[in-house]
C-alpha cells in the first residue's frame, strides 16, 4: 500500500485529524468547555487501547498453553516487571529485548 495515492491520503488524513484534535481548544477556547462525559472517558482510552495492542503481539493471534513457552512471553514478563519497578521506557525496552536475545541465543 505504501507509495500509492491511497497511502498518502491516509497519512494526510491522519495528520489533519491529529492536528485538529490538538488545535481545537487553542482555537475555540472561551467559547466551549470539554464536556464532562468526555473528561470521564478520556483517561480510560490510552490504558485500554495500549493494552489491547500489546497482547496479540506478545501471545500471537491464537494463544494456547504452548504459547507460554514462547521466548516473547518470558521477555514481556521481564519487561513488565522492569516497567513496574522503574517506570522507565528505555530500561523496559532494554530489559525485554535483552531477555529475548538471550533466550534466542540459548534455545
Amino acid at each position: 500500500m505504501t507509495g500509492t495515492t491511497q497511502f498518502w491520503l491516509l497519512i494526510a488524513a491522519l495528520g489533519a485529524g491529529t492536528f485538529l484534535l490538538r488545535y481545537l481548544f487553542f482555537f475555540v477556547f472561551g467559547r466551549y468547555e470539554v464536556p464532562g462525559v468526555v473528561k470521564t472517558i478520556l483517561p480510560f482510552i490510552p490504558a485500554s487501547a495500549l493494552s489491547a495492542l500489546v497482547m496479540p503481539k506478545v501471545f500471537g493471534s491464537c494463544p494456547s498453553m504452548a504459547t507460554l513457552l514462547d521466548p516473547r512471553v518470558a521477555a514481556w514478563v521481564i519487561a513488565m516487571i522492569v516497567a513496574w519497578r522503574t517506570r522507565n521506557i528505555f530500561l523496559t525496552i532494554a530489559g525485554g529485548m535483552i531477555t529475548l536475545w538471550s533466550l534466542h541465543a540459548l534455545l
Partner: protein
Amino acid sequence: MNTSPYLKGARAMLPIMMGVIPMSVVTGVAAVNCGMTTTEALLSSVIMYAAAAQLVAYEMIGNGADMVLIFSAAIVLNLRFLLYSAGMAPHMRDAGWAKRLAGAYCLSDQAYGITMVQLQKEPKTDTARFYLGAALFMWVIYQCAAALGVFLGRSISPDLSLDFAVPLTFSALVVPLMGTPELRVAAITSAITALWFADLPGNAGFFIATFSGITAGMLFREYGKRRNGR
C-alpha cells in the same frame, strides 16, 4: 540569572528524553518494517508526530488493514490530545496565532505534562514560552530519533526481532497509566478481550477490546462510588 523561559522549558525536558528517544527510534524501525520508503517514513513522522498512533497505523498498514479502520484506530488513540489542548489553551490565549499554531502542532504528552508540573512548582512561570520551548525541543529530538530508527531499521538484521520493541514500548507507556483501580480494571479487561478476539480480521479485536476496557473501567468506577455511599 534570567534564563529565557524557552530554554528553561527545553532544559526541563532533558531527563524525559531518555524515554522519548527509544520510543521514537522504535517508530522509525516500525515504519521501515511495514515497507515504507525512507521519505515516506520521515514525512509521516513529521505529519503525524504521535508515537502511539504512528505505531498502530504502521502496524495496520503492514497488515493491509482497511484505511477507515487504520484512521479510526489512530484517531481514537489521539483523542487524549483534546484534553491537553483544553489544558494548554488558557495559557496560550495571549500568544500570537503563529505561536498558537506551533504550540498545537507540537503538543505531546511529555510537553503538556512537564508544563503542568512546572506550573505547580512555580506558578509565576511564563507558561506560553516555557511550554513552547519544551514542545519544540521535544519535536526536534523526536524527529532526529525517528530518523535514526529508519536508519537502524534498514541496517539491522530482522533476526534481532526489533519489531518486539513495539509491544515493549506500549507496555512501558501503559504501566504508569494503571495508577488507579478503575484504570487497572480497564487495562486488564481490554488485554484479556484482545487475546480472546485476536484472530478477528481487520483488527476488529482491537476496537472490541478497547471498548470493553473503557466500559469495564467506568462500570467499576460507578460501583466503587455507590459502595462508598456517594
